[in-house]
Structures are given as C-alpha cells and as structure tokens.
C-alpha cells in the first residue's frame, strides 16, 4: 500500500516536471548551436581586461561597501523585528497569549511571502531610488523568515529551565531572558548568520531595480555595453559573497567550539 502510494507520488512528480518543461518551449536548439556558444564565449571574453582605473575602482569600492552595509543592516533590522514578533507567534508552554498568535503568524507569513525584490520595487515608490529602499526590502522579507524560525526555536526549547524559574516566582520577562533566551541563543545566532550569507547575495542584485549597491552599477554599465567595467562589478560581487561566507563560517565555528 505504502509503496504503491509512493509510486503514484513519484509518477505525478515526474509528470508535473515534464509539464513544466513542455509549457515553457525552451530554445535548446538555439542554446547548443555552435554559433551561440561562440557568442557566449565572446560575451564572457569581453569582460577582460577588467577595468582597473583608479577612479572606477574607488567607485566600485563605495558600491561594494554599500552592498555590504545593506545586507548587514537589513539583517540586523530584521533580527530586531523578528525578536519582537516571534514572542506572540510562539506557542507558549502555559497556553497564554492565544489571542495574538494568529495575527502575529499572519504578519510573519505575509512578510516572508513577498520576495525581497518585490518589496524593493514597492518601497522605491515610498523611499525613492537608493540603498535605503533595498535595505528596508531585505529587512521586511528577512524579518518574516527569521520570525518564523525564532518562534519555532522557542517552541522547541526544552521547558525545564523555564519551569524551574517560574516555580520560583520569576515574572514572564525574567523567565524569557534568563531561561529561554540563553537556551536558544546559539541556534538563533546561526539562523541570523545564515540569512546574512543569503542577504549579501540578494543585496548584490537588488540594485537592478534601482535599490543601490553593486546591482545598480551592474545594470548601469551593462546597459552602456561597458563590458570591462561590468566584469569588474561581477568580480566585486564574487569577492563580497566569498568574504561574507568566510566571515560567517568563522563566526559559526567560534560559536560551536566547546568552552
């Protein structure tokens, strides 16, 4: 019975994937034609030599810092919002606060459902062109993601220490600060670091809609067919992503090291 059910699932999965391929009418012929492969090679070759003019590099460094700042501030703001929203969203051990749970979860779901780039294009209306719109967009989406993860972490925390404090007459905020938070803090921090890694990638491309940083430079120079400069921007993106990955890896290693 179970195996037949699984066979059915696998078959419908394959059917669905096949349907997706069929619906898109992909241009395989155009892709694998020798002529187009040559075109792609030519396009990539145009990136070199990378533009390394002094003035341009200074501008590039500025945009890289802007992207780094967008991802970091966006993640920090999101952490603050998530830390507030996860409290009503988590199922309390003693069953209190049921009234606020549904609206808090709904809010978190809405924040999470709208992709960063959609938030950014909406915020451009309110905040105008520039990195602030991108930062807020990252913060809104990430707050939804982190809020949900935080709430789940709080719900899954071992209840012993909280119970011990409550029995001693500690108030609800004291129980939260001295029992629950210390228990879940390492997990929450690793979620935050992981989202930071993700957000540096998103921050790098958000500029394509005008939200500042490297993405905006990429769109600008690509539109003007300044390929050497475009190549430098792509290289800066790669360096930035690898840098944040490495930093986050080191931070995680430091956290998990015993003692």
């Amino acid at each position, binding site marked *: 019975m179970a195996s037949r059910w699984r066979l059915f699932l696998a078959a419908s999965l394959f059917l669905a994937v096949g349907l997706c391929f069929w619906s898109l009418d992909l241009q395989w012929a155009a892709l694998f034609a020798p002529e187009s492969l040559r075109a792609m090679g030519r396009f990539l070759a145009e990136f070199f030599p990378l533009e390394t003019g002094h003035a341009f590099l200074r501008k590039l460094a500025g945009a890289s810092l802007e992207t*780094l700042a967008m991802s970091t501030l966006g993640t920090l703001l999101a952490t603050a919002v998530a830390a507030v929203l996860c409290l009503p969203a988590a199922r309390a051990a003693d069953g209190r606060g049921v009234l606020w749970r549904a609206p808090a979860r709904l809010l978190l779901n809405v924040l999470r459902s709208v992709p960063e780039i959609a938030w950014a294009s909406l915020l451009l209306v309110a905040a105008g062109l520039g990195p602030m719109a991108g930062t807020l967009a990252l913060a809104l989406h990430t707050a939804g993601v982190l809020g949900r993860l935080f709430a789940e972490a709080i719900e899954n925390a071992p209840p012993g220490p909280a119970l011990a404090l409550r029995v001693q007459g500690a108030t609800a905020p004291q129980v939260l600060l001295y029992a629950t938070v210390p228990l879940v803090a390492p997990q929450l921090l690793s979620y935050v670091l992981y989202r930071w890694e993700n957000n540096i990638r998103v921050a790098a491309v958000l500029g394509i809609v005008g939200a500042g940083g490297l993405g905006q430079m990429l769109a600008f120079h690509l539109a003007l067919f300044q390929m050497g400069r475009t190549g430098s921007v792509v290289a800066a993106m790669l360096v930035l992503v690898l840098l944040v990955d490495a930093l986050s890896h080191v931070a995680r290693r430091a956290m998990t090291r015993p003692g």
Partner: protein
Amino acid sequence: MSAGLAAAPPARRDPAWSGRLAMAIAVALVLWPLLVATEFTPWTMLDAHSLRVTGRFLGEFYPPALSAEFLELVAHATGRTIAIATCGVALALVLAIPLSLVSTAALSVSRLSGRMAPVPFAVRLCTRVLMVGLRTVPELVWALVLVRVVGLGPTSGVLAIALTYGGLLGKVYGEILESADAHAARSLLVNGSGRLAAFLHGLLPNASAELCSYTLYRWECAIRSSVILGFVGAGGLGQMMDTSVKMLAGNEVATLLLVFVGLVALADLASAAARRALRED
C-alpha cells in the same frame, strides 16, 4: 535594561550584565557607519510629498484587481514562474547529483585504508571549487550572460537557476552524505562493492529524508529566484509586478501580493506533506 539591573542591590543583579552591555555597545558602534552607508533616513518617507504619493498608491490597493482578463494574465504568469523554478531545479539536480557523488569523501575507497590518495583528493577538490564557482555567481548575473545567447525569455532563466542551484545543491548534498551514518557504505566498500552500489544501498537510505526536505526547501527558494529573474525579462510574476508598480496600479499590485502569499502557503503545505510522507517509512 542591563544598566538598570546593575544599579539594583547585589542580590538581584543580572549576573550577565557586563557581557550584555558590551554587546549592546558593540552593536551600536557597528550600526552607526551602516546607517550612514545605506543613507538610512526613514523620515524622508514621511514628508508631505512622499506621503501623498504613497497614500495614493496604497489607497488603490483596495479593491484588488479581480477582472477576469487580469486574473487570466496572473494565472498564466504564475504558471510560468513556477515552471521556470521547477525546470531550473530539475536541471540543477542533473548537475548536482553527479557533482556531489564525485566530491563526497564518504565514497572514497582509498580513505578506507588511511588517507585519501592524491589523485582522488585533487579530483574532489576541483569538483568543490567548480561548485563554489557555480553558486557564487548570482543567478541574475548568469541570466544576464545567457540573455545574450538565447535572447529574452524563459530559457535564460531556467539555465541561470540550474547553474546556481546546481552548485548550491551539490555542495549541501555532499555535506549531507558525509554527515550521514557511513557504517553501511563503508562495509559495502570494504567488501568490494562498487561505489554506486555503496551509495544506493549504504548511504542513500540513511540520507534520503534530509536530501528530499532540502531539495523542497530549495525549490521554494527557486520560485523566489524565478520572480527576481522576471524583473530582468524572464517573464512571469516578476515582470508583471515590475510593470504594475511602474504604472502605480495599486489594485494590480495588491492582487499580485495576494498571489505571492498564496504561493508560499502552497509551498509550505507541499513540504509539510512531503515530510510527513517521508517520516512514514
């Protein structure tokens, strides 16, 4: 808060107050340059002109655009966004599965007797570097390169997702295989079974649940990537959102936002169902 508690009588002092205070100061020091660098001035959103524009835009959100004509467009765009994500992940699997099998140390024969031999070690290292390269380039950049070759349309989007996610999935699959219980695979290898057989009968049964659940999670991410690629011309919901916002058509934007919420709710349901099905074994 920590400062307030610190001033209280010793018996009620927060035992961790110095650490918390240091943390708060460090965060403030980091935060300041970030606020400057991102031109973070939220109050500009509250000046009269900006408020008027935002207000008019938001005022149009209700009622959402629900004409049959528009809904048909939205349905078509949603299908396209999902299809691009699904095809992208399917092709990424074609890339990721062989890469992760080559790169994972759990299937190394030479490591059974001490250290890995130099040639297999070099091969594994090269595969890993290739995967880092694939996933470090944002899918949007892949798409912009591919657009020159295959023109605007879904093909460049699908391939862009396939390349980035191929690197992402390959890396994580390799890690999952290495962290799974290797006992069965090792005894198969020691007794002379082939690597593929050792993988299929020794490693895969232990790791399949985690592999599936990670793939599903990435599929959900791919839908978001597919929306992003829509903004640069791959079509689908991203492109519609771009047009509607530029025309300040609040009612259309409201409908699209509802679609995003519905899509993620559906993906949540699907992954919860899949996880339950896997747990039933």
